[in-house]
Each structure stands twice: as C-alpha cells, then as structure tokens.
C-alpha cells in the first residue's frame, strides 16, 4: 500500500515538473502578468466571474496583436473578504512578473489591499470599488475607472426626491461600500428636506429580514433605500412584499445585476438601481465588446462591471506596451493617460478618480433592468 502511494506521489511530482518545463518552452518572449483580484467564489461570485471574463477578453485581444510581449492573466479570488484580499495582495507583490493589478471589486477589500500595493509601488486600478475613501488615502499608485459613492448616492437621492418621494427608510449592510452609499444618500436627501425615517444596518449573509421590515412597515416609508449587494437586497425586496410593504426598493450598482431579479422574483418589479456610466449598448464602441462577450461566454449574462474591467485591463496593457515593465513609470503613465475605451473616455484627477462621472438610473420592468426616466 505504502509503495503504491509513494509511486503515485513521485509520478505526480514528475508530471508537474514536466508540465512546468513545457509551459516555458511554449512561450517565447517576455511574459507580463496582469493580476485580477475579485470574488470568484462566495456570495457575490457572479459579479467576480463576470469581471474575469472582461479581463480575459482584453488579455486575449492584446495577445492576438502583439508579438514581443505575452500577457497573462493572474486571476485571484478574494471572496469579498478583506483578509483574503490582503493575502491575495501579498501573493501578487511577491510575483515579479506582475506589472499591474485590476481590482478589487469590494471597497472593503480594495482599501486594505491598496496599502500593500502602495508599499511595493505597484499600480492598482479598480474597475468597481466606489467608496470615496479608497483614493483619499494619498496613495499615488491607486486609480479607479468607476465613479464614487458620493456621486451615486446623491444622484439617487436627487432622483427619488424629484419623484415626490419624501419619506424613506434606509438599510445598509455595514460594509464600507453599503454604508458609505447609504450615508451619502441620507446626507443629500436630508439636505433636500426629505425625511429619513430610519437608518438600519444588517449583517452580510443574513437571510431573515422580516423583523426589521415589520418595524419599517410601521413607519410607512415611500421607498426603501438599500446600500449593499444583490444577495441581501433581493431577499429584502422579496420579504418586504411578502409582508405587504409594497414600496419599491432603490439601491446602487451592487444590486444592478440579473442575479438580483432571480432572487427577488416577481417582487423586484418596480425596484430601481443607480449604475455608474452610460448604458453599454448606447455607447458606440461597446457594441463590438458585447458581441465578442456573447460569442466567447454564451452561457453567462454580462455583469455590470465587465466593460469596466475590460477597459481597466486595457489601460494597464496600454501602459506596458508604451512604457515597458518599470513599475514607477507605469504609474506615471496611467496618471496622465487619456484612454478612449468602451465605457467612454477615461482620465484621472489628481487623487486617481475618473473624471467620467455619469450615472444612469434603471428599474425592473417585465423581469429585466431597463433604463428609467
């Protein structure tokens, strides 16, 4: 028995050595890695998997046209967990071939991980972390291609106030993203003299929100504003309507995904979400991307941040193409970049935030997210 085990182990080791050898032989020329960190498993894996698709497309396209450099995607999983995010960040900075990081998705992950990248002077461009604090830390290596929660939260507050909604109940998930968004919404809504009836936190991963919703029902709000992700948002929308609390749920980009509608079912009808940027099918340059995405990943619905990840990956590729692998020079290059991509033109301000601050409001109609006027 022991002999067989030994034999299996030794042959496994041999096979892995051989396959390593093969890998190097196949790739001639320089291999440059672009790291992507997002939740590939866990509660919000659907969004992370979509981002991986976006980055994969960008890398493949670059490799088709380039001869001298070979790009490789190093996709790591942070499970939307700050601890895992820092682990992944440490793994990335120890890899000399990595020249830039795309990620992370969650602000709660991006903020601690950005400190690790900063220590190693590695550029990080987040396509999806919207908490303002990320770029307020004074790190010169941190950029993002999505706009921030203060813009999004106050846009939502403005939007609902104009619809004659004067009383709202606010729920958030206590994460930097969810709570940050909810606070921005609250601030603007109160400045407009709207009434915030309650401001309550929930736990990530919780399934039962009925006790809270019964309490909110007694306050008679006209809408529920939710700062958080689709998993909890979908359940809140569903349970609210089951309790006879028939008001729309309004959320941010965290609930703007098909998964939300799957979870909430019919209850999602009329719910609204703000999403950064213009709708991708309205941008002329995105058409090509949408086509390619559909042929390459036929079984997956496109997630909201996939075009952003695609552009972000391309920004890093562009920098390496023009500048080489010097990490400091890449940061300088990206700082002054003017990139015309599928989400529109991306330029960064002195903090590293994008100057593209457009926001669109969507609502669920006939089981689909549609642009809401």
């Amino acid at each position, binding site marked *: 028995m022991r002999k067989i085990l030994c034999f299996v182990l030794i042959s496994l080791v041999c096979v892995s050595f051989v396959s390593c050898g093969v890998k190097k032989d196949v790739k001639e020329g320089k291999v440059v890695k672009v790291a992507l960190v997002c939740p590939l498993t866990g509660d919000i894996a659907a969004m992370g998997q979509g981002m991986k698709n976006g980055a994969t497309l960008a890398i493949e396209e670059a490799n088709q046209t380039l001869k001298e450099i070979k790009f490789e995607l190093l996709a790591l999983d942070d499970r939307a967990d700050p601890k895992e995010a820092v682990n992944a960040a440490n793994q990335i900075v120890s890899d000399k071939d990595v020249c830039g990081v795309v990620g992370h998705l969650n602000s709660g992950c991006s903020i601690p991980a950005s400190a690790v990248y900063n220590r190693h002077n590695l550029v990080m461009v987040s396509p999806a972390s919207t908490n303002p604090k990320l770029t307020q830390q004074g790190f010169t290596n941190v950029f993002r291609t999505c706009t921030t929660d203060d813009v999004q939260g106050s846009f939502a507050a403005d939007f609902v106030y104009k619809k004659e909604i004067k009383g709202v109940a606010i729920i958030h998930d206590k994460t930097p993203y969810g709570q940050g968004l909810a606070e921005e919404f609250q601030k603007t809504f109160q400045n407009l003299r709207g009434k915030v009836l309650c401001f309550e936190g*929930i736990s990530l991963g919780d399934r039962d929100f009925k006790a809270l919703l019964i309490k909110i029902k007694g306050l008679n709000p006209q809408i529920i504003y939710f700062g958080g992700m689709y998993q909890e948002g979908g359940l809140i929308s569903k349970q609210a309507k089951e309790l006879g609390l028939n008001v729309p749920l309004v959320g941010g980009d965290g609930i703007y995904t098909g998964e939300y509608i*799957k979870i909430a079912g019919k209850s999602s009808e009329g719910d609204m979400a703000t999403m950064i940027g213009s709708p991708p099918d309205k941008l002329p340059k995105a058409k090509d991307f949408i086509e390619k995405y559909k042929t390459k990943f036929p079984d997956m619905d496109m997630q909201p941040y996939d075009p952003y990840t695609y552009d972000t990956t391309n920004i890093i590729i562009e920098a390496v193409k023009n500048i080489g692998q010097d990490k400091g020079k890449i940061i300088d290059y990206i700082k002054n970049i003017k990139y015309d991509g599928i989400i529109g033109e991306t330029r960064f301000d002195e903090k590293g935030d994008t100057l593209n601050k457009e926001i669109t409001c969507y609502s669920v109609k006939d089981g689909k997210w549609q642009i809401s006027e």
Partner: protein
Amino acid sequence: MIFQQLINGITLGGIYALIALGYTMVYGVLLMINFAHSEIFMAGAFFGFFLLISFSSIPFLQNNLFLQLLLAFLISMSLTGILGIIIERFAYRPLRKASRLTPLISAIGVSIFLQNLFMLVVSPQAKPFPEIFPVKNFQFGVLSVNSLQIFIITISILLMVVLNYFIKQTKLGTAIRATSSDVETAALMGINTNSVISLVFFIGAGLGGIAGILVGMYYGSIKYNMGFIYGIKAFTAAVLGGIGNIPGAMIGGYLLGVLESLGCAYISSAYKDVFAFIILILVLIIKPTGILGERVQEKC
C-alpha cells in the same frame, strides 16, 4: 406590531427547534455535540431543491402539489437521515471509546468536509429555491400572516408532537430513553445500543433535513454555507432549553426565535445575530443546565 413580530419569531423558532432536536438527541445518547448537524441541515435544503426541480418535469407529479411536497419531504428526510447514520458509523463510532474531545474534532472535520463537498457539487453561488405554492397573505386586523408561515408553524409543531409521542409511548422510544440514561446498562438489559444510536442519528438528521427545506421555501434562496449560522443558533436553542432534553430543545428554539425578532425590532437590527450569542453566554453563566436541563451526573 408586537404580535406581528411574535408570529415572525415563532416561525423562525420552529425552524431553530427542529434543528435543535438533532443536537439534543445526539447529546442525549452520546454526550457529544454533533457539529456536522448544521451541514446535514444544509444538505436537506439541497436535496429538497433537486427533488422539487426534478418533480416539476415529471408529468405525473406536475399538477399534484401535495404529492410533490410530501415526496420531497419524505425522500429528503430519508436521505439526510441516512447521511446522519453514515456520519455516525464512520466518524463517531470508531471514536466512541476515545476521550470526549476526539469525536468533537471529528465532527468539525465532517462539517468542513461536507461544506466543501457541497460547494464543489452545487457551485458556491446561492440557488433560488423553487416556489412551490403561491404565498397568500391573510389579514387579521392589523396582523398579516402568510400561508408559508402557517405551513412552517404547522409542520414544525406536528413533527414535534409525533416525535414526543414516539419517544414517550413506543417501545423504540423507551429504548432510546434507556440508552440515553446509560449506554452500558441499556446494553446489558438486551438493547442493541448501536442500532438505537443509529436510529437517533436518523431521526435527528431527518428533522434537520426537513428544517432545511422549510428554510429554502421561506427565504427562497439556499447556499452551501447556510448551515453554519443556523447550526449555531439551534445549538444555542438546545443549550437554552437544556441540552439532552427534547422538550427543552423545542422551548429553547421558540424562545430564541421570539427573542431574536423582538431584539431586532426594538433594539437594533445591526446586532441581530449577536442576541443569540448573548443568550448563549448568559445561560452558560447563570444556569448552565438550561431551562429544563438537569445536572448531568459525572461518570467516574
């Protein structure tokens, strides 16, 4: 509003109580905490999920809601029950003579194993549970109750009444009680304790499996790691009622559900899960034996 919260709490409590029964029964006979029980509960939810999905494509069952549900419950209960027996046979029985800590570690190992196994099989993402019957709201004055809540409350009470009858009135129940009070003496009296222990695992796991389906139906979404928090809460319920005591587990479950609902409504929803742990700590400090528990005689 307080009555509304009470109904919510009782629904939740019924589910906790069903899971807590599994902890308490196993503790009753083996004096160990079966930490893999939370994963059995999760497995029950997924068995129910796959059964109900496959039923909806069988023409014979398509229009018969009652039969679909009955079959889903029975098959899922048997499957989780068998899973319970398998776990006992391979992870706990070889360690029965070992020190008290060893089977506990084995239980945690089984729990991690099952969780990861399900993650690989069913994917890490949440699955929307099929909507079996349309949820109807009934309004009694200011109070609204929906059909699912009535269904869950009825099922959980019914199961507990049947279990209580089984334990108190039948011959097998007597054998369980005898084994529970002393395994060795029961064996000397001619009881096949091994099969009694298997039976206890079967019943406990089966009830946990049903609780899994109920949770799936109630919240409409299930996930591979959903067992953990329910497991901890049900364990708290079992300790609150007095671990090893069957009526105690039921009382503990309902009490915890109601306390959690009220705490969430009147204190803060941000600390919803904290209430269970505060209760657990308080019980351990003030009355470690729980509400109905008796002092366990230390065996020399």
